[in-house]
């Protein structure tokens, strides 16, 4: 699997990210690193513990990383989640969390495949 195929699977914009970061090597390196990023786990835990302040920061971090790596889908849903948590919990937050969870899975599964195919 190539990086480009991976991005297509994620419904992410490969051309855009290469245009910005200017190096396939760099993009691939950080894209794969996303699998190890603890922010998603922190988001899930914080939501379960109703620590919405921490959840906001975690969602914000995911959003920032996704924007940088061009993970459009997850970036959009985490961005919406971030806004719903900016001033504490709001009723949309739970629904948006589910959306973020689904998009996260849709993002990490192709990334994992890419990682596996590299080894």
């Amino acid at each position, binding site marked *: 699997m190539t990086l480009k195929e991976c991005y297509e699977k994620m419904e992410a914009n490969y051309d855009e990210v290469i245009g910005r970061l200017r190096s396939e090597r760099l993009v691939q390196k950080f894209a794969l*690193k996303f699998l190890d*990023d603890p922010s998603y786990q922190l988001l899930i835990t914080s939501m379960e513990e109703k620590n919405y302040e921490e959840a906001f*920061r975690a969602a914000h971090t995911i959003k920032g990383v996704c*924007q940088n*790596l061009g993970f459009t889908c997850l970036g959009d849903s985490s961005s919406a989640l971030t806004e719903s948590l900016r001033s504490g919990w709001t009723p949309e937050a739970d629904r948006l969390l589910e959306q973020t969870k689904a998009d996260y899975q849709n993002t990490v599964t192709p990334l994992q495949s890419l990682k596996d195919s590299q080894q």
Partner: protein
Amino acid sequence: MFLRQSYEAAYHFKEVSFLIMRKPGQNPRILVADDSEMNRAILEEMLGGEYDILQAENGVEAVEMIRLHETELSLVLLDIVMPVMDGFGVLDEMNRTRWIEEIPVIMISAEINPDNIERAYELGVTDFISRPFDALIVHRRVVNTILLYAKQKKLINLVTDQIYEKEQSSSLMIDILSHIVEFRNGESGLHVRHVNLLTAMFLRHLTQHTEKYRFSRTEISLIATASALHDIGKIAIDEKILNKPGRLTTEEFEIMKTHSAIGAQMLRDLPIHQEEPLVKVAYEICRWHHERYDGRGYPDGLKGDEIPIAAQIVALADVYDALTSERVYKPAFSHQKAVEMILAGECGTFNPLLMDSLRGLAGSIQEELLGDNLVRANQREMRNIAEELLRHKELTASERTLQLLEHERMKYSFFADLTKEIQFEYSISPSIVTISAWGAKHLGLPEVIVDPLNNEKACSLLSATDWQRLSEAVRHTTPEDPNLTYDCLIHYIDEPRWVRFVTRSTWSLEEPPQYTGVIGKAVDIHDSQLRLRKLEQMASHDPLTGLLNHSAAQEQIQARIEDAPERNYALAILDLDHFKAANDTFGHHFGDRVLTFLAEKIRQGIRSGDIAARVGGDEFLIFLEYKQDPEPVIQRIYASLRGEYKGFRLSVSMGISTSEDCGTDYDTLFRTADSALYTVKRGGRGAYRFYNHTMERTLSTITPIENQTVKEER
């Protein structure tokens, strides 16, 4: 986020291995503060080739990093949303410590909230980089910002160096240099300083008094500084000639004369700084400070205005200071003598404009030279600033206002002193009373009292009642009718005195006006008050006997009845039997003394609450209050009036009316008592009688009082 740390742990970041310092070396250092390790890594990847990257994962770590690497940091890339302390917290700290002035900050954030962006700019960030990162943009912004700051720092250093060089080194070096020259000359160390001061004085005077010359303060300072170099050429002159006590031979003098050209040449030979204004002016001064206005000087024989004005002035200053200083070949002349000699043309020919300046400055030169110290310099500076300000036309209006104000103030204090009045000004907020100098001294109070209403000494001056009434009266004034007069006693230490407060309340210009305080004065009216009281006394009393006169008695009696109409009163009118005979026999003076004697007896006979008055020539009135029967009191008083004055036996007739019989109307009481008296007189005198209705329609016994204008008599 890789690390989850408490606030405390964050302070001990050095033990934690998040700190990644790459290739410490000559590369500029950048601190990346972002809670996402991914983001930090991406930035590091983008910039790592050319910069050393330091990392912090929250605000507290970032602040610690800046503290540690302050001077080495070229840039901070700062995220907004971070745990422990966010980006704004870091900016606040950087503002508090003023790092923000030294270290540029670029904010990195996906934040698009305009409030946050504005707040960040207000806190001093240089630029924003928004996510998602564009490698080119990040790189360009970082490079630009670092270059910009580096350039700015370099410029600051450059300017600082130049200023330092110009203002400090140059004047210091010139001082040292000129002292060397003086040392060789055997001159006092003050010569250069004096020439400097005199040069500046002449330059200022020319600027102020001639059309021809206009020197800015910078030019004056430059020329004065350059004047110190006028004799540097003497370095090349043989010490034997330089310090020869006697007269120089012609040859020696020719050698001596070379010093001006030599000094100029030394400056001309300077390898650098030829274009410096200081060097140019110094050259003129060195070369031509021995030229003469009439063309008979050296080395070039320049004439009149061919000689640069700077050199002309230094020449004059040099001559003046040489005359007034002791030299190996001459004693010191007095200031007066030196000025006379120069003006008389004994020491060379000078520009007539400079001679005018010398005349103009003659009175102040000595003082200026003697008082040359820091304070004087500062004062001069102040004056210069003031002069500078005066040149601006837009300031003339306010300056005129200030002059008027100063004039008013002078007038006020002059008149305040002259009038010997206690003048004061009270403002409620802040609560301060200011008392005129004379008034404060007179009252034994300070001129300014803060919170006077709680000042024990101030409060003790008036009685509590007077304070209360006065402040109430003031509070009841209005902007339309702000004036007030209030008389009361001021309790001085030695004696109380009557004063009249004349005040005017002050009001703000707001709508509606707010009461802001009081201005006023307390005039001593003690003497006039005493005179007034005396007049009142005189108006209400009979001058001969000191008893009340009729109208005063009537007023008091009516007031008494009005106060308590239910009580019983008796009014008695009495007269002296055979008084006309006594007058005729012994004369008026005797008669007067008899009346005075009787009045004294009446005064002693009545009780303290009773009223006694003289109502006619020899008629008196007694008014008293009684409980049930007036007779015992009347009888006792009547008995007390018997006696003898120098052989003249006092016999008194008395008629009495009571409120029980005749009512409380004064006129009725008086008329009925008068009728009763008439009845007694008719019945043989020497007795008293109470009025009864049979006495109606009798005549009055009252005779007019002699030598007295009686205000009102029936």
